[in-house]
């Protein structure tokens, strides 16, 4: 809403989805949520046919209604390419960038026999398929071979019996007649090649086609969407696409590298905008409620236990997480339960980012000059281009992060999950607003950006974390923080954390002097003088090493965790006393 000369966020309403039986009409849930906004603002926004639009005189109606959708588990896609690490990977990046969950990526060289691929395609029931393969003027045979596999499998769409499955073809342009011939029985859309030449990835035409077909085919088959689509002139966007758009905006506005994460109940979305390249990945089965036990399964119980600061049996933690899985809407009432969920969140973030880095890498198959080091190190070519030292901002969204009782908790979760290096600004979504601002920005960029900067982003502060490890401990970092009100000078021991408060919106001068083997951005042992931004938590000096060093001894590990939590004032005092009392009675 416009307040004076600026656009500001006014109110939000929430309601459970009504896409499922017994309602099977998504607009009822939308009405319930809008009704809450009506009650809170005194505006009249609804009438019989839907949201009142355009705005009428007085307090009736809205200028625009924009919406995203993740109904029915979001857009579920399968992708196909010729070479697994080349066109299939480009197709996967394009589908993910469009906001889809990629159920599988098939390729000529993916190690499966043709009948296994056919079996897989038949059982998946995707919403849509993206087929890529071959550079323009390159192979026709192989990409047609993939199309023949798909044709033979006759995949059925997930929603709506008897509707044609949408397929996007963005491969070698010379193969188009053969593809038309093979896949013509589906709702086929042909667009420009995703890899016209090996050196270039061109995901936009495929992404646009996915969004178009998502509206035309997928959304129109979900219950009530035909009606919802008449309520708005702005195309409905898959929720992660909206979220990704805002992370891109943040990077573009500040001209910096940004990593963003949406930690949800079922999935974890990681976004990176690094040196201008935008990559989104979704870990479809890493989440904090529905998928909490998949985090347990993938991370292993020991990796979750290492973040729990009190003595508890692994079997008990396992049962607790299982009980959250089967009753996913429950919330932690006690601090111990909250700490266990936070332990899982750290691992979900770590695994999600690990997955992300596997796709955020240079184009494979491109000839380039290798350094001697790379020639000897075979892995170099497949490693991510993301260097945490050059990430300027790390931002999080999603229920657990947005609803964390203390902002210091979300700051610590982001730090522990991503392990930023050097100086990194931390931010989070105040309420779950980023996807909506993303879709709004497609039509009204200015109001969207104003609300994003002023009401959506909460600046948590800046994390200052030297890269490296001091095997023998000792002083890791000396710092001096200077602003108009004060000068703070202090040292941080290796293995410790310290916080210096600096309000949101304020900046200060910072002088850093790391130990000989530690690097804050200018090389090991080199100092740094710079300006630093504050936030609701402040300046977080994290000298726990990169990677973070946790003691092997269990008692020492738990004490270290408590020490770090206390340094950030992350949890109430009462829990530390409770834990220390129990430990004193013979915890091990």
């Amino acid at each position, binding site marked *: 809403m416009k307040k004076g000369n600026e656009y500001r966020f006014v109110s939000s309403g*929430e*309601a*459970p*989805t009504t*896409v*499922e*039986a017994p309602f099977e009409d998504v607009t009822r849930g939308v009405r*319930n949520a809008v009704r809450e906004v009506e009650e809170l603002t005194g505006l009249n926004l609804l009438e019989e046919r839907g949201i009142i639009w355009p705005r009428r005189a007085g307090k009736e109606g809205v200028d625009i209604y924009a919406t995203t959708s993740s109904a*029915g*588990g979001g857009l579920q896609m399968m992708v196909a390419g010729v070479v697994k690490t080349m066109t299939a990977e480009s197709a996967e990046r394009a589908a993910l960038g469009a906001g889809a969950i990629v159920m599988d990526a098939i390729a000529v060289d993916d190690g499966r026999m*043709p*009948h296994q691929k*056919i*079996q897989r395609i038949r059982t998946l029931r995707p919403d849509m398929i993206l087929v890529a393969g071959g550079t323009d003027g390159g192979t*026709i*045979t*192989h990409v*047609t*071979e993939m199309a*023949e*596999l798909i*044709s*033979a*499998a*006759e995949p059925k769409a997930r929603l709506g019996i008897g509707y044609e499955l949408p397929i996007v073809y963005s491969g070698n342009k010379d193969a188009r007649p*053969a593809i038309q011939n093979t896949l013509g029985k589906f709702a086929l859309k042909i667009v420009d090649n995703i890899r016209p030449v090996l050196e270039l990835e061109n995901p936009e035409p495929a992404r646009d086609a996915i969004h178009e077909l998502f509206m035309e085919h997928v959304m129109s088959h979900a219950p009530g969407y035909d009606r919802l689509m008449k309520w708005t002139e702005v195309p409905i966007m898959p929720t992660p696409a909206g979220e990704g758009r805002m992370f891109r905006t943040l990077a573009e506005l500040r001209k910096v590298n940004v990593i963003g994460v949406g930690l949800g109940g*079922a999935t974890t979305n990681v976004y990176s905008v690094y040196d201008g390249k935008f990559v989104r990945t979704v870990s479809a*089965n890493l989440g904090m409620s*529905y*998928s909490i*036990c*998949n985090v*347990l*399964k*993938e991370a292993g119980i020991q990796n979750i236990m290492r973040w729990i600061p009190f003595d508890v049996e692994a*079997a*008990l933690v*396992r*049962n*607790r997480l*299982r*009980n959250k*899985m*089967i*009753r*996913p*809407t*429950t*919330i*932690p*009432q*006690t*601090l*111990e*339960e*909250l700490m266990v969920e936070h332990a899982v969140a750290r691992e979900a973030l770590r695994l999600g980012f690990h997955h992300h880095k596997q796709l955020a890498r240079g184009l494979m198959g491109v000839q380039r000059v290798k350094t001697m080091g790379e020639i000897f190190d075979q892995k170099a070519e497949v490693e991510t281009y993301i260097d945490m030292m050059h990430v300027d901002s790390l931002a999080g969204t999603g229920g657990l992060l947005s*609803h964390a*009782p*203390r902002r210091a908790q979300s700051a610590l979760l982001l730090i522990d999950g991503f392990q930023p290096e050097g100086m990194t600004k931390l931010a989070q979504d105040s309420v779950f607003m980023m996807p909506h601002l993303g879709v709004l920005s497609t039509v009204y960029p200015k109001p969207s950006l104003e609300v994003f900067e002023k009401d959506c982003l909460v600046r948590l502060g800046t994390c200052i974390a030297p890269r490296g490890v001091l095997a023998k401990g000792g002083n890791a970092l000396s710092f001096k923080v200077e602003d108009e009100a004060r000068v703070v000078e202090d040292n941080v021991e290796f293995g410790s954390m310290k916080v210096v408060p600096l309000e949101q919106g304020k900046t200060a001068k910072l002088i850093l002097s790391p130990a000989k083997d530690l690097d804050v951005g200018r090389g090991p042992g080199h100092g740094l003088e710079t300006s630093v931004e504050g936030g609701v938590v402040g300046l977080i000096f994290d000298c726990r090493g990169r990677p973070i060093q946790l003691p092997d001894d269990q008692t020492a590990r738990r004490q270290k965790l408590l020490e770090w939590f206390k340094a950030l004032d992350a949890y*109430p005092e009462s829990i530390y006393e409770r834990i220390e009392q129990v430990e004193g009675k013979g915890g091990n």
Partner: protein
Amino acid sequence: MAHAYTPGLKVKRFAIVSKTRRLPIHGEVLVKEGDLVKHDQVVAKTQVPGEVHLINVANALGVDPEETSQYMLKKLKEPVAKDEVFAKRSSFFGLFKSFVKSPVDGTIELVSDVTGQVALREAYVPVEITAYIPGKIVQVLPREGVMIRTPAALVQGIFGVGGEAHAELKMAAKTPDDILTAEAIESSHAGKVLVGGSLVTGDALAKAVKTGVKGIVVGGVEDEDLIKFLGYEIGVAITGQEEIGTTLIITEGFGKMKMPERTFDLLKSFDGREASINGATQIRAGVIRPEIVIALTENEAKGMMEDEKEASAGMTPGTPVRIIRDPYFGAIGQVVSLPVELQKAESESEVRVVQVALEDGRKVIVPRANVEIIEE
């Protein structure tokens, strides 16, 4: 949010249970509206297209892909037998021959002059759908399936593994606190659905499979025992496809959890009766919970009325509820009040709460999200 509570699991002595039995693809419905069907009666059948085998004939014959059709001995849609030669090339006046044999019985579905591939499709595979519950056909979905309805006692579990089964219900516990151990499982339990108390042990699960027990209904199971039982760890709660021989339904959760008296007593009153059970669980949008359905006779159903008001009315003072998260996990009580204002939980989360009077007389405040309504 107006409805921030978990709708409870159904534990009903009387309910009208309807099941839609649908084929995966169009087929033939074998019953008509009004027919009475039994558990294992086939109500619809179809044929699913068989497996496809792709063979690169051009490569095998050493010819260019665009020449593939020329060397085919069989035309499109023509049947071909296992080991039958369906493509052949002779060179040097018949001196050298190369040929391709079919690996399966099937039909020629594709001959590609772009890739040189030939697709062979195996014969159709028959698929049948049984009634699963006994009852009356109330609707025929042409070419797709039927809807069956019966008056029944219905108990929903919280989580299960293993698919549909039907068998006699047999009590294997004296009280809802009892632990179902391997020793308690006898050879006479083969082909039955056993009802336990608060926990089934890992050894008991193994013995149940060995003995041929069709199903186990129990309050809880240790996660580590479930992993051993399945042979793998479940990541996401989407189950029902496991082929383990014994369907397991837990009514409360993971760990030792006393089965509520009401559930236990209801199942006990049907000791010796035929039950349909399904462990299939889906905890995602479109939630599916495991179930035990005991069809009632006309006489038993006479005069009984289904009470559906709880599901729609939500919580009000006096509503019976169960707490489903620590620190009061499993406690049963009644709603005392529903404060409108958000309150701070110990975890410092600001949440909508409910005050509950527990059975032991204590009054406790818990987040509304952490209780479920007991549907009677």
